[in-house]
């Protein structure tokens, strides 16, 4: 039997079926504005926080090359950053009815670490036995949120640019409770098979919904979850 005949025979023997995979990896990325506002003057440091991603994916392989998948993942999306800002407008409202509005110039350190239950869904394209590509979207529900940090070595102007200047040596902020409980976005990536069942996997997850609600004014620009998951998949 020639090679061609063998392949042809396999093609004929293809049956639509389900595939099960365990996904494990880490998220690298940021809760970031898309295009920096001019009030951000300098990024002094960036680091990914410990952001594991663990989940399960079910694929319905409809034909040899195409399938659809649905997964469920526990996703930590974290990062830390140190930056310098100028005339950064902020409005802080508190539960006791208080409100502070002002423009801050100085140093900022922010740590964001939000944990989601994510349901990714994709169209899956498998052109050959090595590569597997997917493109789709995700919905995610927040189950734990952290968004806090410090502002230091600067000043804030009460109310806006013409308000009185108040020196800030160091002050903390915590917007954790303001993070939205639902995120939705697009995602896509590629997996490269390196063993019988194991593949290396990279997947970009791009949030389309600002992580803070519209009436939140602690930052005067929207932040989106943009994270790359790097990891392995294990086909059960």
């Amino acid at each position, binding site marked *: 039997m020639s090679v061609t005949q063998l392949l042809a025979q396999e093609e004929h023997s293809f049956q639509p079926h389900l595939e099960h995979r365990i996904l494990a990896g880490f998220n*690298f*990325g*940021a809760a*970031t504005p898309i*295009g*920096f*506002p*001019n*009030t*951000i*003057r*300098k*990024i002094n440091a*960036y680091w990914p926080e410990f952001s594991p991603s663990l989940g399960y994916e079910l694929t319905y392989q409809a034909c040899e090359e195409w399938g659809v998948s649905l997964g469920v993942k526990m996703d930590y999306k974290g990062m830390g950053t140190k930056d310098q800002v*100028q*005339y950064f407008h902020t409005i*802080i*409202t*508190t*539960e*006791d*009815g*208080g*409100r*502070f509005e002002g*423009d801050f110039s100085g140093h900022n350190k922010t740590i964001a670490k939000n944990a989601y239950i994510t349901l990714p869904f994709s169209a899956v394209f498998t052109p050959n036995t090595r590569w597997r590509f997917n493109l789709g979207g995700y919905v995610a529900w927040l189950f734990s949120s952290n968004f806090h940090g410090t502002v230091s070595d600067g000043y804030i*102007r*009460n*109310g806006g*640019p*013409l*308000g*009185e*200047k*108040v*020196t*800030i*040596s*160091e*002050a*903390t902020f*915590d917007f954790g409770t303001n993070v939205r409980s639902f995120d939705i976005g697009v995602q896509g990536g590629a997996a*490269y098979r390196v063993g019988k069942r194991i593949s*290396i996997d*990279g997947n970009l997850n791009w949030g389309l919904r600002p992580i803070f609600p519209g009436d939140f004014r602690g930052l005067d620009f929207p932040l989106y979850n*943009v994270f*790359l998951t*790097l990891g392995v998949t294990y086909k059960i």
Partner: protein
Amino acid sequence: MNKLKLGCLSVLLLLQYACIKKAPVNPEADIISFSIPARYLTSDVFIDQINSRILLNLTPAAFDSGVVPIITVSEGAHLTPPSGDSLHFSTKNQNTYVVTSASGVNQKTYVVTVVNIGVWQWDFEIWRENAKDKYQYPIEANEDSSEIWSSGNPGIALSGVPANPLEYPLRATTDAYHGKYAAEMVTRKGTALSELVGIKLFAGSLFLGVFDPTNALFQPLKATQFGQPYIGKPARFMGYYKYTPGDNYQDKSGTIIPGIKDSCSLYAVLFKGTTRLDGTNIQTSDRIVAIATLPDGGPQANYKRFDVPFIEVRPYEATDQLMLAIVASSSKDGDSYKGAIGSRLVLDSMQVTHQ
């Protein structure tokens, strides 16, 4: 493959770096400094940034001849009239300076106010309200409407209290001994924001002097700048007050300390020099020459008259350059954030008599 992905990630991050935009043009329009030779002044110049005023305490000679201030403004901003122009004072014309920010968008007008203390007697009849933060402050009944009293209210405004005069610990009350109004101080609990920096209580305060917000958050005791220029020798400090301590005395951490009753404090301090004392040294400075203190800060349900003499603690002459501060607080330990929430001190018809 991993290298490729790391490469993609770096590109993503690099893009973000590359996206740092051109710096915004300076939107600020402050008068940063206003200098007049010290020989023309009876106290240091104070730039009231909250209300955009330059407060001058001038010698009579300087008032008559005018002065030539040297002024600096925010970087790139434009000042009219310019620094170095002479400034003349008359009762008719108000001197103003207009600062336009480098961005051209913002303008701030500063009014030059020659502080006129006149009679050292106060009934706290005329009150104004800060336009933005809505706290009240008393002004003098003289034709200049001088503002010589200040309080912790502007600092408390920074800690995010609701914009309502009754949320601030110093305010006007109709519970007056004489006239329509008196000054009421009520110790209140901290705000959600102030508790983040460990401040669980704000005592009500009223003092002769100015509030400098610059250091209000990290050195709050330096924000309260005590004293106004004084000529001669004071004899007695008198007036009417009532005081009701709050129920539960708490320490700085907010823990209730049983068995301790809150008390108020009220004192007048005469000191040498033209630079104000502040919360860190008003009781300890070696510039202090005479003190008059209300001896009993305990409960007083109805208006009670107080009349205490100035006790000389260091020798001084009536011709010395002197400043006088009066400091009142609804919680005696309020400067270290201790006291009882609800403690209420009301003051009316105060005066300082001269020898």
